[in-house]
């Protein structure tokens, strides 16, 4: 017999079971809600980009990668007649050193990092443009004109990148819509097809784009015209007979160049295009912002900012700050000064000089160093002490010099006025309290107490005063297109048979930039008659009759040095091998450049990852 107590206990147990089961039931209810995934920090692309505001934000995303793209300069500046990866010209025949990418040596293969880096970032940018193009139709309640403008900007951007890619690699993939699936098949599209697409897209963009953009920095009608001029000019040359080009393309190039020239007058002084600064850092009177990067001549430029956050260099999602951010052009060229007496080392007085691109000896000889303002602007001829250096000994046995901040410590002589030994520094038996380096010693001079070995003048066309020391931090916009180039495009197109130039013949276009640089048509402009040698004989570079392609390339060197065009210019004009061998001691020394080098290898990272076999360019 169960006692009452036991029965109560039994009932309690039943109750407990019920409670427990109901608990299980209660907690097992709403798993649907629990498992709903909602990202608070993030919006999904579908919901955000379909709103007009979201679409507008999407349109701003097609610009920032330009900062990364234009930093990939090793394949554009180096390996040409103007720039080399190292100085040490006297060692340029050393076979052990001569395997580098920029000498077209054994390291120029499909695995080279520089090759895949450029490829990757170009296609990232192409996809960003495609995202915009593909989603334009999904915008709900958007302003049709504005959307059409944004699509035109994206087409311009896609064309800009595809154009760079097709020049570097020839036949390349040509995605024209947003990537939405993880497709691993890679298809190379014929160059002629790509050029046709470029012209279709750019022509459409030119029609839709406004003359003045809603925000300065966005693509404009002139930017599309300038790019069309480049594309037609390049197709006209018809590299390897594969671009589908005809002579008619040159006339188109000229016509578009004329449009750019008409809407973008040159600024008066070449120096007005670049940051203002004093050559003597101890007497630096300028700071960032003293020169506006905006002017009538600039057609399209990559934008930089004086705000660290918006000046960041962003390569991928999440990486808000990468490297130092900002424009890095000021610190990439050769000829550092932190090894001279009176230099405290790593300071922004002379900022960073990384020596990624060393100017070849011939480049100096292309200038009239006295009259051509570009020469003085582009090269540091005098280096000053920034701090005192008392008791400095120029050489063993020489009376010490008390160097004061602001004293001249290093002078680079112009190519046409070498110093005699007596006029050189005390370090080499001269009389000067500073070192003097003649042009024929640039890049090969021995170390002295005044300086390290292989010294060259700094190429400081892009130098910015008053920014923090580092690999970046620059605030000045990096120009991608300016109308000075349009003059030279027009000249080249006429040389190649274009007709109907608004300004006249080739020399009329050509002389415009020369005359601005020297200060008028009456001022002499004399370069070395032979840029490659050491002779002091001169020859004028003002056009008086026939304009040749070499003249245009020389003037492009003077005018557009370092502006991200050189390799493309030389390749287009079929002059790369000839001029690089003649003027770049390392390429001459290695003598490995061949015609197949006019195309880069398809990156190994791409072929390793594709499920189909990609045909590699010949030679690699």
């Amino acid at each position, binding site marked *: 017999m169960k006692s009452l107590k036991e029965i109560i206990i039994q009932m309690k*147990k039943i109750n*407990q*079971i019920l409670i*427990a089961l109901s*608990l299980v039931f209660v907690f097992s209810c709403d798993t649907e809600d*629990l*498992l709903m*995934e*909602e*990202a608070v*920090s*993030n*919006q*999904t*692309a579908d919901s*955000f*980009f379909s709103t007009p505001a979201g679409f507008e*934000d*999407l349109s*701003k995303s097609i*610009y920032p990668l330009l900062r990364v793209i234009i930093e990939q300069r090793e394949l554009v500046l180096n390996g040409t007649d103007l720039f080399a990866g190292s100085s040490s010209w006297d060692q340029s025949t050393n*076979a*052990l050193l001569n395997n580098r990418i920029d000498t077209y040596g054994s*390291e120029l*293969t*499909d*695995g*080279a990092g520089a090759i895949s880096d450029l490829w990757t970032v170009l*296609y*990232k940018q192409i*996809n960003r443009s495609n995202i915009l193009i593909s989603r334009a139709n999904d915008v709900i309640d958007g302003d049709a004109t504005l959307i059409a403008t944004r699509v035109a900007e994206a087409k311009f951007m896609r064309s800009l990148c595809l154009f760079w890619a097709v020049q570097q690699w020839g036949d390349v993939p040509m995605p024209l819509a947003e*990537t939405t699936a*993880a*497709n691993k098949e*890679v298809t190379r599209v014929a160059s002629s097809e790509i050029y046709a697409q470029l012209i279709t897209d750019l022509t459409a963009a030119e029609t839709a784009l406004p003359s003045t953009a809603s*925000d300065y*920095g966005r693509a404009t009608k002139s930017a599309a015209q300038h790019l069309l001029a480049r594309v037609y000019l390049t197709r006209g040359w018809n590299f390897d007979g594969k671009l589908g080009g005809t002579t008619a393309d040159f006339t188109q190039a000229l016509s578009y160049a004329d449009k750019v020239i008409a809407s973008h007058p040159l600024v008066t002084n070449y120096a007005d295009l670049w940051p203002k600064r004093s050559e003597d850092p101890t007497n630096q009177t300028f700071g960032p912002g003293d020169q506006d990067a905006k002017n009538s001549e600039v057609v399209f430029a990559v*934008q930089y900012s004086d705000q*660290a*956050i*918006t*000046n960041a260099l962003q390569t991928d*999602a999440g990486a*808000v700050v990468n490297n130092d951010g900002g424009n890095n052009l000021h610190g990439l060229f050769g000829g550092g000064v*932190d090894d001279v007496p*009176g*230099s*405290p*080392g*790593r*300071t*922004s007085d002379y900022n960073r000089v990384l020596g990624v691109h060393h100017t070849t000896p011939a480049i100096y000889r292309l200038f009239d160093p006295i009259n051509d303002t570009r020469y003085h602007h582009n090269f540091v001829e005098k280096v000053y002490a920034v701090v005192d250096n008392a008791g400095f000994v120029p050489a063993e046995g020489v009376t010490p010099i008390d160097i004061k901040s602001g004293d001249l410590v290093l002078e680079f002589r112009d190519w046409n006025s070498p110093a005699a030994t007596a006029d050189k520094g005390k370090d080499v038996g001269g009389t000067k309290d500073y070192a003097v380096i003649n042009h024929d010693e640039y890049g090969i001079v021995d*170390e002295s107490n005044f300086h*390290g*070995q292989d010294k060259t003048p700094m190429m400081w066309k892009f130098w910015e005063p008053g920014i923090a*020391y580092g690999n970046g931090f620059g605030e000045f916009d990096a120009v991608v297109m300016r109308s000075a180039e349009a003059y030279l495009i027009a000249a080249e197109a006429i040389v190649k048979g274009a007709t109907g130039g608004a300004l006249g013949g080739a020399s009329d276009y050509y002389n415009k930039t020369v005359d601005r640089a020297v200060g008028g048509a009456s001022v002499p402009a004399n370069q070395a008659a032979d840029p490659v040698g050491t002779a002091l004989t001169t020859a004028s570079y003002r056009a008086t009759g026939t304009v040749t392609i070499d003249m245009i390339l020389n003037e492009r060197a003077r005018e557009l040095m370092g502006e991200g065009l050189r390799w493309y210019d030389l390749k287009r004009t079929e002059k790369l091998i000839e001029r690089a061998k003649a003027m770049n001691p390392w390429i001459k020394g290695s003598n490995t450049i061949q015609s197949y080098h006019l195309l880069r290898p398809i990156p*190994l*990272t791409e072929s390793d*990852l594709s*499920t189909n076999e990609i045909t590699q360019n010949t030679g690699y």
Partner: protein
Amino acid sequence: MINLKRGTVDPRKLKTRTMSLFQKGFFMLLLLVGVVVSAQQNITGTITDEAGVPLPGVNVVIKGTNDGVSSDFDGNYTIKAEADDVIVFSFIGFVDQEVSVGNNSNINVLLVASFDELDEVIVTTGYGQSRKRDLTGAIAQIRTETITRANPLQAAASLQGQVAGVNITKVKGRPGDGFDINIRGLNNFDADKTAPLVVVDGIMGANLNSINPSDIQTIDVLKDASSTAVYGSRGANGVIIVTTKKGATGKANVTYNGYYGIRTKSHMPEFMDSKQYYDLYSNEKFGRGFTAQEEYNVNNGITTDWVDLITQDAVQQNHTVAVSGGSEKTSYNFSAAYLEEGGLTNHTDYERLSLNAGVESQISDNVKVGFTSYITQSDRNWGSTEALRSALRSRPTGTVFFDDIVEPNKRDTNYGPVGPYAFFMGIDDSQVINPLIEIDPQNFQRRQKANSILANVFAEIKLADGLKFKTSYSAYETTAREGDYRGTFTKSQKGSNNPKVDTWNYKTSNYTLDNTLNYNKTFGKHRIDATALFSIFEQYDEYMQIQVEDLAYRSLWHNTGSGATIKAYNTNLIESSLASYMGRVNYTFNDKYLLTVTGRYDGASQLATDNKWAFFPSAALGWRLSEESFIEDLDVFSSLKLRVSYGEVGNNASISPYATQSNIYQTVYDFDGSAANGYSINSLSNRGLVWERSREVNFGLDFALKNIGIRGSIEIYKRNTEDLILDDKLPTSTGFDSAIANVGEIENSGVEITLNTVNVSKGDFKWSSDLTFTANKDKVIKLAGGITEDKGNGRFVGESVRAYYTYKFEGIWQTDEATEAAVYGQVPGQVKLADLNDDDKINSDDRTIVGKGTPDWTAGLRNQISYKNWDMSFFMYTRRGLMYSNAYLNATYGDISSDRYNRSSELNYWTATNPSNEYFSPLTGPGLNGNNESKGGNTRVALSYQMADFVRISDITFGYSLPQNILDELGVSRLRIYGQVQNPFVFSDFLSFDPEYNSGGDNDDLPAMTVLFGVNLNF
């Protein structure tokens, strides 16, 4: 009791015994909590082993009831009993004893050690416990003795070599750094997705590093899929269950465990001294040259050992005080612990304070409640993250103090002294600055302060006989603030830029709610233990970052507002959740045949709606052969069990939250002075993503041999992981680097052997050994899309998960091979690579699989010797068949053909008179050099692929326990003092800081030996 012979046992008694065993398990399950008994008499006594050492934690139970207590740390117990009761004393590792109460009020018991009783160990199986003898899956356990014996800084380290199938790898050498753990090989290509689930006191996803090793009672490692299936979608990489120490009834027990030791760097690879360095690099082939000051140092025999100057002998100490006790119905435990791990690099250290409290109470006959909390505060001081790298690189010809520079070069004089130091060290190079400046905490500091709280509350209700309902809520929260301050005089600020600071805040919180229904009943020969679970889990990760530059003064990360330039700021939130239903039935027939069936149905927030839910089943059989007469008749085995299991589990860790959504992210730009921030697509979405699933078959054999002291386990398994979820690299012409995808199938198969032997046991002398052996073979079975190789992702069907696909090192070009070398543009002294297709050039077609980054086998051997009051043990560990791309050679120390930094002096490099085939000539360089993957990554990397086999003596320990008479005088129940040497010997051909951890040395990865002294004290 287990080896009772059939026929000699009264079946009724056997059943009772079974019950008592079950009760014992039950008591362990209840964590030694007392249960109400009605009593008439207090029986007291002391329980000791044969040597007279008191035995704490012995189960003391009235036979045939659930009523029992456990002995305290002095071996004392008190239990209420009637005169006709029989008291059963049982303890792991000892033969049970039964004593009739009679008229005695004081019963002292001496328990005899039993080798076979290890079968009785209670193993935590996840949502329940089991005796080892009843297990059907592959679960290994290490207990507090093993954990504290090795004195690990981190609990994970105690598993190293102790559990077959568990591979523990240190990540970095900095103080407070943790370990990578993987169980039974790599189930995923991505190392971040192979970590096992860690469950601390029922809390999933806790951090093992935040638990003081001394607070751990047991670590159970669930290895096979049938065991981990109770964790369903989180079980694929194995499960590590940590159970912390809990209170016991009886008077308060106070224990102290502590040690103090010194870590010293040892087994260091050698670097060049100034003479060696100068002799090699003053050759005119090298361009950089030497300053007059450097030459002065060389001529005067001055060598600067930079590493020595910025490193120190470091303190390693841990002190834990624990108190536990309780009344009949309530037990409690508290502990407090302090750990200090000094860094070998100056101004680095790690401190951790752990506070632990738990209470459990039987508040009524049917209801038990409990609460535990575990709080950890830690402070990791990384100091300068650049100084050690600078010291390892700086030239030995450099000068430390500015005043010691007798031949200043302009770089020195231009810059002047920084404190007493020479900024550029009298060297003509501005890349690296004086490490003594870099390391000064005034200049450089990186520090992380973190707190974590683990808390659990539960109520357990006995609903009916054998039926219990338990609801348990666990919360885990960890917050961390990290700061990185760099003053002007650091490499990153170049001695000229203003200070900058970067600071991050992280917060992770999660909760787990488990509702469990358990039914446990014996019907005659049948025993059923069934569990049903409903569980939900949610996790919440927050992140905040601020980075500013141009600080006005050294405010570290405590005044970011004073930074003139804001570089970055951001916050972020990631949430995920999991809902689960689980059922498990353990059925035992006749104590001989065991069956476990498990199923778990999991839904995860990370997957798209149609793919959220998945079912993970398992089944396992066990056969206790030793209970069969034909085995008993052999008279060989005291215990023999055969197990077979099959299970399917998922890998929740492989699915990142939001991976199925196409998320946007912010891009930054500027239009003419105005911020022009836009949004673009972050990554390709993949709504078709399905659960990654592992299927595993496991065969196990547990045995113990009679008379000779050998017992052990053998596990054989094969695990196939399908639909691996991975970031799959894409051709970048898609515009994306990668997409998350189900990419293929991997197989891991292997053998694990665990042997415990008593080699000698004579009188006071005992020598025993524990051996573990693990062999695992991993290979790729198939890849998505039916391809057999995916070079870009490094995946090859039939090859290891970590196959190295690269150029094959074939030695060094010798003088008589000059002509052949010239074909490849090389000269004698340079690295020779295999031209696999004989086309007279080395390009990407010459890559092949040169090795793999997973070991063939590992083994650990611990020997323990005791004689009277003395004890001694040592532990050896070996790993074989694993190849690394040697990070030491790949770092600057191996770059002997350049004269910028100091280099290793141990390289057997080629010269015309030393035709080495190991290392290239400093004069020629490796050849085909450069940042160029298709040329062998450069040839230097090709030669760095080397086998990293090693044998290590991990620790040697000597201990002495004070004899009873002295203890009595001192009033303590146990006092053992010991000395230990950690990492005294490493044997390997792999030139590196440590063959086990492939390191370039930058992260305080300096090899160390530790000498420490410790005390184990019980009151």
